[in-house]
């Protein structure tokens, strides 16, 4: 028996903050103090508070330590684990109020969450099947195999109101039903872990933090539709997810949750991992199927839908990681329980990956219908540096932006669509007043142009043309009529592209045009970037009256574009200036002006 458990987050964010070194240091010091037998160290998946990493939670008390350095570990061991005194210095302190919070469960960030898909992520050791089982893991599979017919399983999922979390929000039960209706024979279950939205990382966190929940859900899906084989398609950028999942597969086979005669029944099911190779379009379900088959990941025309003719022409269901993660709890607690959470048309919860200009970056799960304001301000802690909130992008490169006016609208599938955005995978990129919306639109078009598979002309040529107009705008060469041409192209691409990539590619442009048209106009008519971002449209000068001649700017300028003599006002040589803005940051008396 251990008298204390220490969870160390090993999510992607914390690993990049050197959490592995902190864990090693902890293990080493516990050994030196001779208490390795008393304290168990558990490496978990993403706890969600990426900005505060590396983080450590000490149980039984649930004390939350954050932003740990190697030097802090000994103090936690000596003070907390040996003497039982909380190390206040390392607790979370709210940025504005300075209020210190000791327990994880009291943090505002966690208090407002409702964790279903993330129920185990950041709580258990993802490499231990025993820990998953100890938290009722594989109970739902047992329930299903022990007395539910495939039809009853599908009815339960349908009744829960679960909709796909990967983008479109299609009712999961209906999709399963289509595949179940297909004639008996070889069928497949596929999990989409391609997570193409740059800025979303919930699928990665679930696979890395709770891989067995996906295995269990896919086995349940296999039973429901009559499939004996499944594939999980993981993007190549996530090697740790692949490794963790493969280990989990091995354990599940050893325990008899995969393979033949699962749990002593005559149900057979097994899973394999396929690794993507860097193509955004492979997140689209028919392109993904082509990729699993070993081909170029080009989309196929639909119909036929995968539920009728999918992988190798056989009936196939494809669901997103987060969709699957909801399945075992629905079976376990019932459709009624699930359908009480969220809103009328969007049941349950949604995981959001909050990133960009927001204080508490990280992963949160909240009931559907939570407002943008609650997400950004109450949970996310607001915008850093007292800057103003400008926009939030949802739905990634296929989505659109929400503005100040939308702060109080509920986040659910249908409301977001009405506003010209979409739920997408739940990536939420927050942008402050310094972000140029024309440049953001250019960024997304650059992405979709690059990722267009080239199979259909509207998408390939149309995105190239839109991009060249946007590039013109941000480099100060916009022309009258550019906005109108963008709008025409957008409609054309939307209406004539073969797959969702092209059909949705113009969305970021249309949505920024709708909400920030005056910014486009300023770029064209006034050759001005209102956010002060586009380099071709800004210049830096030194205000001679304010300059104290300290020379700090000249020393920091990477292109030696600042000249002058100490104690006299300095000046900027426009031809040499690359407009990097370092001088502005470094000047102690705010003598640098950006225009």
């Amino acid at each position, binding site marked *: 028996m251990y008298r204390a458990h220490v969870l160390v987050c090993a999510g992607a964010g914390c690993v990049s903050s050197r959490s592995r070194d902190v864990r090693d240091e902890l293990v080493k010091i516990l050994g030196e103090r001779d208490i390795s037998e008393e304290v168990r160290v558990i490496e978990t998946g993403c706890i969600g508070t990426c900005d505060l990493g590396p983080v450590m939670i000490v149980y039984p008390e649930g004390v939350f330590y954050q932003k740990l350095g190697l030097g802090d570990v000994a103090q936690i061991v000596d003070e907390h684990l040996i003497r039982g005194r909380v190390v206040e210095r390392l607790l979370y302190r709210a940025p504005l109020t300075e209020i210190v919070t000791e327990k994880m469960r009291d943090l505002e960030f966690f208090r407002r969450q409702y964790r279903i898909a993330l129920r185990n992520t950041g709580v258990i050791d993802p490499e231990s099947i025993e820990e998953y089982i100890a938290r009722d893991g594989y109970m739902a599979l047992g329930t299903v195999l022990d007395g539910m017919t495939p039809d009853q399983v599908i009815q339960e999922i349908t009744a829960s109101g679960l909709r796909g979390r990967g983008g479109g929000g299609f009712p999961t039960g209906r999709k399963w039903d289509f595949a179940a209706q297909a004639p008996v024979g070889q069928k497949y279950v596929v999990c989409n872990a391609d997570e193409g939205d740059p800025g979303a990382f919930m699928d990665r966190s679930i696979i890395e933090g709770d891989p067995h929940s996906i295995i269990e859900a896919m086995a349940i899906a296999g039973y429901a539709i009559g499939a004996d084989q499944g594939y999980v398609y993981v993007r190549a950028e996530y090697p740790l997810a692949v490794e963790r999942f493969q280990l989990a597969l091995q354990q599940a086979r050893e325990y008899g949750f995969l393979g033949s005669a699962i749990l002593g029944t005559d149900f057979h099911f097994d899973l394999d991992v396929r690794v993507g*190779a860097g193509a955004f379009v492979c997140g689209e379900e028919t392109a993904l199927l082509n990729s699993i088959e070993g081909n170029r990941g080009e989309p196929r025309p639909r119909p036929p839908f995968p539920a009728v003719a999918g992988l190798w022409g056989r009936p196939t269901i494809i669901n997103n990681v987060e969709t699957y993660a909801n399945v075992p709890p629905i079976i376990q607690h019932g459709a009624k329980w699930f359908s009480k959470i969220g809103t009328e048309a969007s049941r349950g919860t949604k995981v959001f990956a909050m990133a960009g200009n927001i204080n508490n970056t990280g992963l949160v799960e909240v009931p559907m219908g939570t407002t943008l304001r609650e997400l950004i301000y109450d949970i996310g802690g607001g915008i850093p540096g007292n800057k103003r909130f400008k926009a939030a992008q949802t739905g990634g490169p296929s989505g659109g932006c929400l503005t100040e006016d939308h702060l109080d609208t509920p986040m659910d599938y249908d409301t977001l669509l009405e506003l010209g955005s979409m739920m997408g995978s739940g*990536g939420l990129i927050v942008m402050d007043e310094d972000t140029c919306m024309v440049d953001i639109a250019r960024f997304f078009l650059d992405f979709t142009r690059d990722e267009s598979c080239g199979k259909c002309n509207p998408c390939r040529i149309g995105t190239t043309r839109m991009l060249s107009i946007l590039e013109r705008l941000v480099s100060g060469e916009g022309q009258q009529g550019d906005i109108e041409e963008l709008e025409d192209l957008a409609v054309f691409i939307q209406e004539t592209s073969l797959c969702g990539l092209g059909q949705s590619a113009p969305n970021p442009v249309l949505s920024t045009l709708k909400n920030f048209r005056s910014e486009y106009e300023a770029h064209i008519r006034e050759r001005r970037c209102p956010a002060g971002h586009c380099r071709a449209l800004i210049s830096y000068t030194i205000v001679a009256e304010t300059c104290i001649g300290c020379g700090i700017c000249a020393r920091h300028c990477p292109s030696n574009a600042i000249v002058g003599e100490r104690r006299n006002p300095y000046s900027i040589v426009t031809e040499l200036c690359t407009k990097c803005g370092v001088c502005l940051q470094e000047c102690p008396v705010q003598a640098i002006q950006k225009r």
Partner: protein
Amino acid sequence: MCSTVADKVYTIVDRFRDTPGSLIPILHAIQEEYGYLSRDVQAMVASELGISPAKVHGVVSFYSFFTEQAKGEHEIGVCMGTACYVRGAADVLEAFQNQLHIRAGETTSDQRFTIGMTRCIGACGLAPVVTINDDVYGRLAPDRVPELIEKYRRQ
């Protein structure tokens, strides 16, 4: 083509021969071993699997993860995902380019560094993010770039 390379390629192909849709897993395994997929290797894979070299090349060129060129000893990947872009990834990329005097996608003449732009690696909470080989650096300000390059230069 030297025979040890050929043997390795054959071993890899054999390992996946019974895997449905084996081409992509095979290419991954070969690239993992050699760092890139030469035209010769692609031709060997094609003849082993009994498919046309054009089909193999079609797959290699479709996916950005596969490369036909050898990379430098240290591979720098500047994440250009949305979260990283909003937090200034373009400035970070520029700092690497200026410091190494090459553009993204290029390798230094001494073959020590390659700069690449990556898609989101899922560490968005700590944007901007850069990977160098298997190491991940979060919240990377452009002014830390010189010291970082120096660290790898010494390795």
